[in-house]
């Protein structure tokens, strides 16, 4: 078991989203759109995950002229393992069950 974090409904949703394609970088706006979590809630969770070593971040090269480079995120290899364990544990809780049910349709 990795570093425990407080799994709020939003954290569960973000972890689930990041676990769908674990090796692929995701942008903040894309995560927000997929999970319907507002930026004011999303970023503090991302910041916490990064601080705990679950998440790695990088700046991509500017693809569009005149636009700043974008920040992107993906789970670290350890983070993936911990996230899976936490999600399994979270399924035992009420909101985890609900979230898991929603995630799997």
């Amino acid at each position, binding site marked *: 078991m990795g570093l425990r974090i407080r799994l709020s409904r939003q954290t569960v949703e973000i972890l689930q989203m990041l676990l769908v394609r674990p090796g692929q970088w995701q*942008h*903040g*706006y894309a995560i*927000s759109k997929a999970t319907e979590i*507002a*930026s*004011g*809630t*999303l*970023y*503090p969770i*991302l*910041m916490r995950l990064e601080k705990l070593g679950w998440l790695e*971040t990088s700046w991509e090269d500017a693809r569009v002229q005149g*636009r*700043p*480079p*974008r*920040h992107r995120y993906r789970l670290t290899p350890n983070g993936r393992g911990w996230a899976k364990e936490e999600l399994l544990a979270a399924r035992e809780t009420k909101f985890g069950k609900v979230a898991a049910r929603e995630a799997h349709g």
Partner: protein
Amino acid sequence: MNETSQSLVLRWARWQTRVLVSVWPEESRDWGEAIASEAEEIEQPLQALSWALGGVTVYLRAMGGHLWEWLKMPVGQRDGAAPLAGAPGPRRSRLFTALVLACAAGLLCLPEGREAIRTVRASWQDYAEIGPSQGELEKLAARAKKENDAQTMAFVALSTDDEKQATELADRAVKLEPRLFWIYEARSFWPTDSAVAKDWIAKAEAADPQNAVPYLRAARMMVERTYAELGKQHSPTEPEVNQALVSNPEWGKLMDKIFRAPIYNSFSREHEELNREVWRRNPQLLIGTVLPGLLRHAIPDVRALEWYAKELVKQAEQRRVAGQLEKAQDLLKEAQGLGERMEEDAKREGWFQGMGLSLERESTLGWKEFYEGTGQTAKAQEARQRAAQIEERGAALVQDAERRWRERPRLERNGWVVQLSGLAMILGVLAAGLGVGLFEIWPAIGKRVPRARRALSLLTDFAPGLFLAASAVFMWGFLPYERLIAAFREGSSGTGEVMRLSSAFWSLQDVTWRIGGADAAVLGWTLLTVVLSLLVALIMGRMAYRAMHRTAPQA
């Protein structure tokens, strides 16, 4: 929403996230930039707006975290900067320092703390003698005039040193509330200026002709005048003044009026109640503003009364010897009557009881002589017993006064505790402000003189604690004063509150005189002003220096 406004919203949202980045705490600025770069990707204006607002909440959390980390660092420590080798700065964190200072400030902000500060400040304000704060009185007078508040007008009229203002306000107050007529009598203070006092006495006589008190004030003036006239030749003795007065027919007429007046009412209770009420309504008033009016309440002249009472008894004895028994009895009744009326007044007001007893004693002894001279042995015996009872009551009164006087040394000790802890409080807060200010503006201060830097660090570490401890002692030391003030405001401790309160206040003022002599207040405030000015000059100089060095490379 049309295209222009959509574009405006979009631009505003993006601009806002960029602005946030510029003020974002350095350690998490990447995240601010991440939010800003994502905002550029959003094409829907409302979504962009929502994104930007979310960015604000993230920024606020980041700032909160940053502030918390900053507070946990020692005073003067900058982000990422290592402490100076060999000359570390303060060890206490900003949070600890701020908490200690806040606790002390919180204590002093309690109603009791504010009362203590006001009272002690008043004790330093008037170093020559107790005097009202004219500024406070001016404000009260202006408000009272605006609101047609007769009671406050009367209070100011009785407290101010400005005779013109007093006259105007007293007349207006009595016009609004005729039952306040007694303020004319109460205002006829010790007649330092006879012409002025004469006006007040004339108004008091016109408003309350049945009362002996205004005539007593006029009698007092006559005593003063006699002393002054005799003093032109040599320093007069009391019997000489007595002789001069008794031989003055004007004096006789006046004293006759006094002893025949059916009422004796000095209105000191009304005066006390008025001041109490105004203080209750204006708790911010300084004790030095509330007390003076009460302490200057016109007090009758004891000696003149005693002289005249003795004169009446002497005349009664002469009449008795001459066989004019009825006339002799009238004279004795006259002397006895005023004593009784004064004692009656004392029951209500707690003042002048001793004076009333003294007059009663004189007249009772006169009666004893009369009865013995007329062969009424039983009545003479009765009068003797009555005189003995009066003496006992007088002795009890003296004992009571001594008991009250014994309270004074305790308060004197408290006065020292309050004043010294108050000084320690000022030193503590100034030292804390100086230390924290210097280290925050100039973290490397004294790096070339490690010993001085260490001393300043110790001062910065311990001054807030000194401030807190001194504040606690200050509040504790002030408790007896607080109780006296509360008792006065509530009117719960019976008679003599004014004297107890003023005695307490004097015990505080005594300390200021002993510390700095008559100029203690001037000395104290001068020192404080110099220290604060130096501090401000130092801080401003340092800020100017930093500003110049920051702009130099750009130039």
